[in-house]
């Protein structure tokens, strides 16, 4: 069963922290926790970035759940928690928080990397950058 190994797969507007997702994958039998934070950075393509606005398709939460289930099925020894934030974010905010735990580190590293890659590939979420000069741009849509 993969469901019991997915502790969280959610899309929402509340602020994210790594501590939150790491706590969700804590397990006395697991000696390795690997986590990833996708953080709003202050530059893109050589231009200064002030803020990012994330929007999601109504199916984003379901897709994130499918992504987590696919990773859980491909990595049968891990436990997963993943959350994506939407709405207005500023530099330093966490947009994507993921944590994976397992008995040993190799499986946790592999599954966390695969999870982040698949979230970015599949989840219907978009971000609009606001640059220092006030110009805006949808990332990846030019």
């Amino acid at each position, binding site marked *: 069963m993969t469901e019991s190994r997915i502790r969280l797969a959610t899309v929402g507007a509340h602020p994210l922290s790594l501590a939150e997702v790491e706590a969700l994958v804590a397990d006395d039998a697991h000696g390795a926790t690997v986590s990833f934070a996708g953080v709003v950075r202050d530059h893109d393509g050589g231009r200064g970035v002030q803020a990012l606005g994330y929007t*999601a398709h109504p*199916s984003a939460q379901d897709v994130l759940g499918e992504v987590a289930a696919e990773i859980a099925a491909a990595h049968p020894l891990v436990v997963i928690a993943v959350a994506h934030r939407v709405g207005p974010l500023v530099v330093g905010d966490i*947009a994507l928080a993921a944590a994976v735990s397992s008995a040993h580190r190799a499986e946790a590293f592999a599954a966390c990397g695969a999870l982040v890659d698949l*979230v*970015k590939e*599949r989840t*219907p979420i*978009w971000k609009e950058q606001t640059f220092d000069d006030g110009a805006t741009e949808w990332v990846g849509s030019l």
Partner: protein
Amino acid sequence: MSVQIQARFFAAARDAAGAESLALAPQSPTIAGLLAAVGATHPEGERIFGRCSFLVNGRSTSDLAHPLADGDRVDVLPPFAGG
């Protein structure tokens, strides 16, 4: 025979279409026909529409020749950029 399609546009595609949602009657009952119907009034959208994927009644496709039937709901999705 004309078909009526309810189309929704997201992110950059919404900006290009000038609306979140449009009721369209494309001359050709395909996704390409639907995009042509939008492009007739929003020619600057052609580039972004060409990079989109689509949900037809909730099912994903990137096939511009995908046939559409009267009453279909089509979501126009630009390249994903989460994380």
